[in-house]
């Protein structure tokens, strides 16, 4: 087990380095001058050549790419992530202020996806191809097709129209103002949670239907246990392994999906910051945020692999 974790972590570190190289070079092939993004096309033409060179040097953009890259990695290692082109707040402060909100959204949505998805899967698997099964399958397929951010916009609109209600727009931390915080977080969490619940329900259903064919499940039924007990106590634990894997992957996708969803709700989280950075072509913020998301994604995958290996010894000893 120990060896397995070390191996996964080593490979994860390798991936993170590769990821940082990819992000850096993808974002630096940006056509167009970053100075145009900062000063606007009009302000840019007013700059003299010397000014331009001065600003480029100040931003560290006139060094060779390799030097810039090493510089950036050094900054990350020291924990200073630089500044936005447009805002006084440093990227590190922004992550500290906005990150928890997005983290809460992600965690609540995962919890919600299990709370909704697993019972639905059990109901489906109890009587496959029955009316109820077909309905739940259709609803889950429907939820795979609904874009989360659109669903979010509809929720915002509906609550405004019918209840005259809108979640507070200013950020509120969980500790200082839990009630406001909950109101901000709950909308995106529900939208993202239901989206994941559809995947979870589908995966859990097919996994359950496979496990149900095993001998020990037949034994449990032969003992006279009722269908619900057989499925939820005997079949479910073994059927959950692929669901856990999927849920971990989905958690990573929720972090990405929260970008448009937070935009739809106007949630002041990290996803919204990403949206602002994208629309302002703010390369420095973009680069650091994409890197952060990628690192979290890699870590999540490792966490899932380790959890699965812990639960299932067959994988550990491969």
């Amino acid at each position, binding site marked *: 087990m120990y060896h397995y974790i070390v191996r996964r972590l080593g490979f994860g570190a390798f991936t993170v380095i590769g990821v940082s190289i990819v992000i850096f070079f993808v974002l630096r092939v940006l056509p167009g001058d970053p100075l145009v993004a900062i000063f606007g096309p009009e302000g840019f033409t007013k700059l003299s050549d010397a000014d331009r060179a001065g600003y480029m040097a100040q931003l560290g953009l006139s060094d060779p790419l390799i030097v810039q890259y090493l510089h950036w990695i050094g900054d990350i290692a020291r924990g200073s992530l630089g500044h936005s082109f447009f805002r006084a707040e440093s990227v590190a402060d922004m992550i500290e202020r906005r990150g928890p909100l997005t983290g809460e959204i992600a965690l609540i949505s995962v919890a919600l996806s299990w709370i909704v998805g697993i019972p639905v899967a059990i109901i489906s698997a109890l009587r496959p191809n029955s009316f109820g099964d077909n309905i739940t399958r259709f609803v889950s397929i*429907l939820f795979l097709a609904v874009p989360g951010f659109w669903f979010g916009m509809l929720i915002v*609109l509906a609550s405004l129209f019918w209840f005259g209600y809108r979640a507070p727009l200013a950020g509120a931390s969980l500790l200082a103002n839990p009630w406001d915080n909950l109101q901000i977080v709950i909308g995106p969490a529900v939208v993202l949670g239901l989206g994941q619940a559809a995947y979870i329900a589908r995966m859990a259903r097919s996994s359950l239907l496979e496990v149900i064919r095993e001998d020990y499940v037949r034994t449990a039924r032969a003992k006279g246990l009722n269908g619900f007990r057989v499925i939820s106590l005997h079949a479910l634990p073994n059927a959950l392994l692929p669901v856990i894997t999927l849920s971990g992957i989905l958690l990573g996708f929720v972090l990405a999906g929260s970008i448009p969803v937070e935009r739809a709700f106007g949630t002041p989280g990290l996803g919204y910051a990403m949206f602002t950075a994208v629309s302002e072509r703010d390369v420095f913020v973009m680069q650091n945020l994409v890197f952060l998301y990628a690192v979290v994604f890699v870590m999540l995958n490792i966490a899932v692999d380790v959890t699965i290996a812990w639960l299932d010894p067959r994988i550990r000893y491969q």
Partner: protein
Amino acid sequence: MTVPEAIGEPETLYPIERIPAAPETTLRHRVGRSLLSFVRRAPLSAFWGCIAAAIVVMALTAPLIAPYEPLKSDFRHMTKPPAAPHYFGTDQIGRDTLSRVIYGSRASLTVAIGAVLFGTTLGSLWGLASGYFGGRFDIVSQRIIEFLQSFPDLILAMAIAMALGAGIGTVIVAIAITRIPFGGRVIRAVVLSLKEMSYVEAARGLGASHLRMMARHILPQCIAPYLILATTHLGVAIIIEASLGFLGVGIPPPTPTWGNMLADSLNGGLVPPWWLVLFPGCAITLTVLAFNLLGDGIRDILDPRLRRAV
């Protein structure tokens, strides 16, 4: 060089019974028959397939169907709710929402089909090659695919679309790149299992070249999983395209796309008019649903074992 005429009269040389040309073996009949069996075995999927086809037709014939020009402003009807002349209402500068939704299907479908054609196909061919050759090439390919998969696909697409600048081509490339790993993984897994089959070994024993082995003996078996992947990913690509448009890194306005229509609806103020939100989103949902259910049907019929893999 001309092909010599048939040597002699076959009837006189080989007095065998002539087999009457079976009419049902023509391509048209075969396609018709398999379509019919598709309808019989998966009626629901066939129904959604018809809807998908209708959406494609709508995109192709948009100038004929759309009641108004999608870009023309009618300044007497600005931000009007759905009513007689404009059945889906008008946006903040008086453009007809119905026409824009109809034209929006063009962008969505072009991007989705383009992304799947490039991304899923390239990924599948890559998976075919890396599964077939194995060894060092396979290991390197696997690492590259794992790198690509260490970004959530929306973020990767955003970064690429942002780096390459706005435009339909860049959006296609950005989404296509996120599709490559899926093709690579699924097809590689299929190829790995095919490689052990005895008919493949027999072909190798007969001295078939690598190219021939891949093209004649392995590729045909990959078509079913490829089709399943492609239809599933059409839906995913449409959602990513809409998200990119919504975040302002997709196809730039004024070209109407469902994503940038939803983004535009937020421009007027804090509260977007409901008809500008409802209709483009319904179009996205309906299209994705149609392709997904069609894909489900194809999967059930072509290869029930793949239910879990894709």
